[in-house]
C-alpha cells in the first residue's frame, strides 16, 4: 500500500473511521444527536474525499491494486451511494416512527451498509466482491428489523435473512464455478476470458454465470427472485426502505458492470438469454403484482421490481449508450425512490404506524399541498412523464434498447409502462381526491431535515428533467474513466 493507493481509497477509510467513531461514542454514552451529526459529517467528508480519489486517476491512470479498482465507474457509484446514504441519514434523523428504540445504531448500520455497497462496486476480485456484499447484507438484516416491536418488521427481517443467505451461497457457488472454468478470481481476467470464448459458453462457465446472476438478481429483486421485496419494504421503516430500494440495488448494478463489462452482452447468446428472461419476467411480475396493492409501500416495492427490469433492457444494449442509459436511469431512480419513501417518512408521526395505505393519502393535496405536489411529481417521474427527470430516464432506456435493436424487450417495456400507469395514477388520484368520510390519520408537518432532503430531490428532479445535459456530461466522464480502467 503506497500513499497514492491510500489516497485513492480515502472515501472508504473515512466511512470506516466514522463507523468506529460512532461505535465508540455509543459505547461511552448514548447521544443520538452526536451519532447523527457524526454520521452526516462522516458521509459528507467521504463524499468530498471522492475528489481526491478522482484526482488520483488523472495523471498516472488508476493505481494498480489487486483487490480494488478505482476508476470513473468507482467514483460514479461511490458518489451515488454516498449521496443516497446521506439523504437516508437525514431522513432517518427526522423520522418519528422509531418508538422507544435508540437510533444511534441505525446511523452506524447505514454507514456500514454504505461502506459495503461502495466496496462491492469497487471490487476487482471475487473476495472483495463477496466481502462487500456480505457487509451490505448483514447491515441490512439489522436495519430491516430495527423496530423490534413491529411484527411486520421482524417478518421482513427473517425473510430477508433466510433468502439472502441462500442467495449468498448461490453466489459463492457461482463464483467458485467461474474460478473453475477460467482459473482466476480477478474479475477483469474472468470476464475477458469468458468474452474471448465461443458464442456459447462451456457448461461450467454458463452454470457459474447463471448462479452468480441468481445471487445478484436476488439483491436486485428481479423476478423470480423478488419474493422478499414487498414484505421487506413494508416491514422496514421508510428511510430504511429507501435505502434498500436504492443503495443495495445500485451497488449490485455497479458489480454487474464489473463482471459483465469486458464485452458486449449481445455477443454472448447464453448471457443475453439469462438477462432477457430476467428482464421480461421482472417487468411483468412487478407491474402485475403492483396493480391492486392497497399498501403504498408494497406497491412501490412491486414497481421497483419492474424498474429493475426496465434498467436491464438498457443494460443489454451495446456500446456507449449502455453505461450512459443505465447510469442515468439509476441516478433518477435513486432520486424518485428516495423521494417517494421520503414523503412517507416525513409524514410518519410518533404513533408508530406509517401512512402506507392508499387511504392514508386520500386528500393529501388539500391537507398538505407541498408534500402532495412533491409526491405526485415523484410518482409521475416513475411513470416517465415530462418536466420530471423520469422522462429523460425512460427516453434513455428506450434509446439504448433501440440502438441495439432489442425490439422484443422494447415492446414489452412499452406495454408494461402502460400497465404501470394504472397504479401510479391510482395513487395520484387518491392524493388529489377529497378526503374520505372516516377519521383521518393525523399527518405531522415535516421536520426541517426531511423538508431539506425532499426539497433538494425535487430541485434535482425538475432541473434534470428540463436540462439533463450536466448530469449526462458527468456520466460521460465516468464512462470514459471506466473504459480507461480496463
Amino acid at each position: 500500500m503506497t500513499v497514492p493507493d491510500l489516497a485513492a481509497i480515502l472515501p472508504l477509510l473515512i466511512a470506516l473511521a466514522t463507523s468506529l467513531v460512532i461505535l465508540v461514542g455509543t459505547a461511552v454514552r448514548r447521544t443520538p444527536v452526536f451519532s447523527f451529526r457524526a454520521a452526516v459529517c462522516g458521509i459528507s467528508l467521504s463524499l468530498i474525499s471522492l475528489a481526491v480519489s478522482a484526482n488520483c486517476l488523472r495523471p498516472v491512470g488508476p493505481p494498480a491494486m489487486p483487490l480494488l479498482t478505482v476508476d470513473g465507474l468507482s467514483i460514479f457509484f461511490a458518489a451515488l451511494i454516498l449521496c443516497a446514504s446521506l439523504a437516508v441519514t437525514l431522513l432517518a434523523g427526522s423520522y418519528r416512527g422509531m418508538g422507544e428504540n435508540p437510533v444511534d445504531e441505525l446511523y452506524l448500520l447505514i454507514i456500514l451498509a454504505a461502506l459495503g455497497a461502495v466496496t462491492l462496486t469497487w471490487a476487482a476480485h471475487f473476495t472483495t466482491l463477496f466481502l462487500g456484499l456480505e457487509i451490505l447484507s448483514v447491515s441490512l438484516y439489522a436495519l430491516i428489523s430495527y423496530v423490534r416491536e413491529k411484527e411486520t418488521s421482524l417478518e421482513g427481517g427473517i425473510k430477508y435473512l433466510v433468502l439472502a443467505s441462500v442467495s449468498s451461497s448461490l453466489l459463492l457457488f457461482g463464483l467458485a464455478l467461474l474460478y473453475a472454468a477460467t482459473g482466476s478470481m480477478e474479475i477483469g481476467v474472468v470476464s475477458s476470458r469468458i468474452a474471448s470464448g465461443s458464442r456459447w459458453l462451456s457448461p461450467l462457465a454458463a452454470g457459474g454465470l447463471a448462479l452468480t446472476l441468481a445471487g445478484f438478481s436476488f439483491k436486485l429483486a428481479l423476478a423470480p427472485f423478488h419474493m422478499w421485496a414487498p414484505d421487506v419494504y413494508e416491514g422496514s421503516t421508510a428511510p430504511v426502505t429507501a435505502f434498500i430500494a436504492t443503495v443495495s440495488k445500485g451497488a449490485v448494478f455497479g458489480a454487474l458492470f464489473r463482471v459483465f463489462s469486458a464485452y458486449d452482452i449481445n455477443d454472448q447468446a447464453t448471457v443475453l438469454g439469462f438477462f432477457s428472461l430476467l428482464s421480461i419476467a421482472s417487468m411483468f411480475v412487478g407491474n402485475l403484482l403492483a396493480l391492486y396493492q392497497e399498501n403504498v409501500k408494497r406497491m412501490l416495492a412491486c414497481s421497483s421490481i419492474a424498474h429493475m427490469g426496465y434498467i436491464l433492457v438498457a443494460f443489454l444494449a451495446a456500446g456507449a449508450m449502455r453505461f450512459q442509459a443505465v447510469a442515468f436511469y439509476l441516478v433518477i431512480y435513486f432520486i424518485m425512490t428516495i423521494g417517494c419513501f421520503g414523503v412517507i417518512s416525513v409524514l410518519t408521526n410518533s404513533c408508530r404506524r406509517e401512512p402506507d395505505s392508499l387511504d392514508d393519502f386520500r386528500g393529501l393535496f388539500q391537507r398538505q399541498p407541498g408534500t402532495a405536489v412533491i409526491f405526485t411529481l415523484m410518482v409521475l417521474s416513475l411513470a416517465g412523464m415530462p418536466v420530471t427527470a423520469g422522462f429523460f430516464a425512460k427516453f434513455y432506456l428506450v434509446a439504448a434498447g433501440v440502438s441495439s435493436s432489442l425490439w422484443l424487450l422494447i415492446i414489452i417495456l412499452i406495454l408494461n409502462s402502460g400497465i404501470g400507469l394504472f397504479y401510479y395514477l391510482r395513487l395520484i388520484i387518491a392524493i388529489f381526491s377529497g378526503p374520505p368520510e372516516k377519521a383521518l390519520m393525523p399527518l405531522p408537518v415535516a421536520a426541517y431535515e426531511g423538508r431539506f432532503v425532499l426539497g433538494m430531490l425535487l430541485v434535482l428532479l425538475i432541473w434534470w428533467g428540463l436540462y439533463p445535459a450536466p448530469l449526462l456530461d458527468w456520466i460521460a466522464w465516468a464512462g470514459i474513466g471506466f473504459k480507461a480502467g480496463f
Partner: protein
Amino acid sequence: MILPWLILLPLFGGALAWLLGRGGPSGPRKVSICVLALDLVLAALAWTGVYGAERPAAVWIAQFHMPWVPGLGIGIDLAMDGLSLLLVILTLIIGLVAVGATKTEDERQPGFFHFCLLWTLAGVLGVFLAMDLILFYFFWELMLIPMFFLIAVWGHENRHYASIKFFIFTQVGGLFLLAAILALFFIHAGATGNFTFYLPELVGTKTGPAVSLLLMLGFLAAFAVKLPVVPFHTWLPDAHAEAPTAGSIILAALLLKTGAYGMLRLALPLFPGAGAQIAEIAMVLGVTGILYGAFMSYAQTDLKRLVAYTSVSHMGFALLGIYAGTAIALQGAILQIICHAFSTGALFAIAGFLQDRLQTRELDRMGGLWPVLPRLGSVTIFFALASMGLPGIGNFIAEFLVLLGTFQAGTTTSVSAAVIASGGFVLSTVYSLCMVRRIFFGALPAGTTGESMPDLSWGETAVVAPLIIALLWIGLHPQPVMDTAWVATGRTGMISTGPAPYQIDEICYDRRQPGTGGAK
C-alpha cells in the same frame, strides 16, 4: 423570439394562476384570460406578417433554435408555418372559449384548475410548434398530465375510470411514437453520421420499405389513438363525457387535432412511400369512423357522449382527407380540423350551459325547452346545422372538399370511399336534428314543471359568438384560411401524400371556385 413566448406565457400564467388561487376563482380566471388574450395578440401579429406587403421569402414564418441536450442532437427547435399558425390561433381561441364556458366548475381549487388548463394549452401549442422530434414528444406527453388532472379532479361521476383510461391509451401510443422516433434517429445517424432529431433533416431518410412501414406504424400508434381512428377510439366517449366543460372543449377541439397534425406534419412527410401503402386501409378506417361514429352518436342518451361520438364521425372525414392523396382532400382535412374544433367546442360549451341549468346531461330528462330557452335553442340549432354540414357554414366546405378530393383521386377504393362517406352527411343530419328535437322540442319530461330558467346570458353569448362568426366566415370566405395553410406547407414540402409531389398551388388556385361553397 415570438415562438418560445407563445409557449412560455401560458406556462408562467399557469404558475401565477396557482399562486392566486387562494383568493377564489376570479383571480386565476383573469390570469387565464389575460394570458391567452396576450398570446392571441402575439399570434395575430405573426399572421399579419404572412399577409404583409410581401410574403416572406423564407420557408418559415418564424423560427427559434436553442441547444438542449447537445450530446444527442436534441435541440429546442420551434418553427411556425401556415398550418402551425392556424392551429396556434385555433388553440388560443378555443382556450378562451374554454375559460369563458367555465362558470362554476373552477370554484373548487381554482388555482390548480387554471394551472391545468393553461398547461394543457401550452402542451398543445408546443406540439404545434415543435420541430425537434424529442421536443415534440416532450410536449405530446406534457399535455396529458394536466388534462388527466382536469378530468380526474373536476370531472363527473365516473371520472377516475375515464381519466385513467384516457391516460393509459394515449401514453402507450406515445411510447410507440418514442420508439419509432429513436429508431429513425439511429437509422439517420447511421446513414449520415449526423445525430439530430431536427425534423427537416430527418425528412428524406432512406429506409427499406418494410422498416419504414414499421416506423410509420409506430408514429401512427400515437396519432391514431389521439385522432381517434376507429378501433382505438374507446377512450374518447368516456373522457369527453366525464371531463368538466372546459376539459371536454379542449379535448375535442384541440387534443384530437394534435393527432391529425401529427399525421400531417410527421407521419406523411417522413414516410411518404409507406403512407401511400396504407392509404387505402386508412381511408377504409376513415369511412368506418364516419359511419360508426354517426350511428353510435344517434344511439346515445347522454348529451356529452352524443357529441363525443360526432367527433369520431367528423374526424373520420379528416382521416379520409389526409390519406386520399389529393391536394383538395388535404385542404378539406385541414379545414375540417379547424371547423370541427369550433362546432364541437361550441356543442360541448352548450352541453355545459344546459348542465348548469338542468343538472343533467341525460337527453331523456330534457325536452320542451324551446319556450324557456329560445336564445340558447337557436344557438344550438346553428351548431347542429354546422355539424350536419349545411352550406354556408365552414364544416360544409371542409367535408365537401374532402369528398371531392377523395372522389378525384380516382382509384376504386377512393371513389367508393367517397360515395359511402357521403352517407355521413345524411346520418349527421339525423343525429343533429334528433339531438335538437330531444333537447328543445316535444314534451317536458315528467316531473318537471318547466319553471323559468335564465336564457343565454351575455357572458355565454360572448363565448359562442366568436365561434359562430368564425364558422360563418370560413363557410362564406374560406380562401384566407386555405391560403394561410398553404403559404408554408406547400412550399416546404412538409406535406406530401404520395411518391410524386403534386403542384399544390396550381391545384389550389385552379379549383378555387368549388372551394367557396357558400356561394353555390
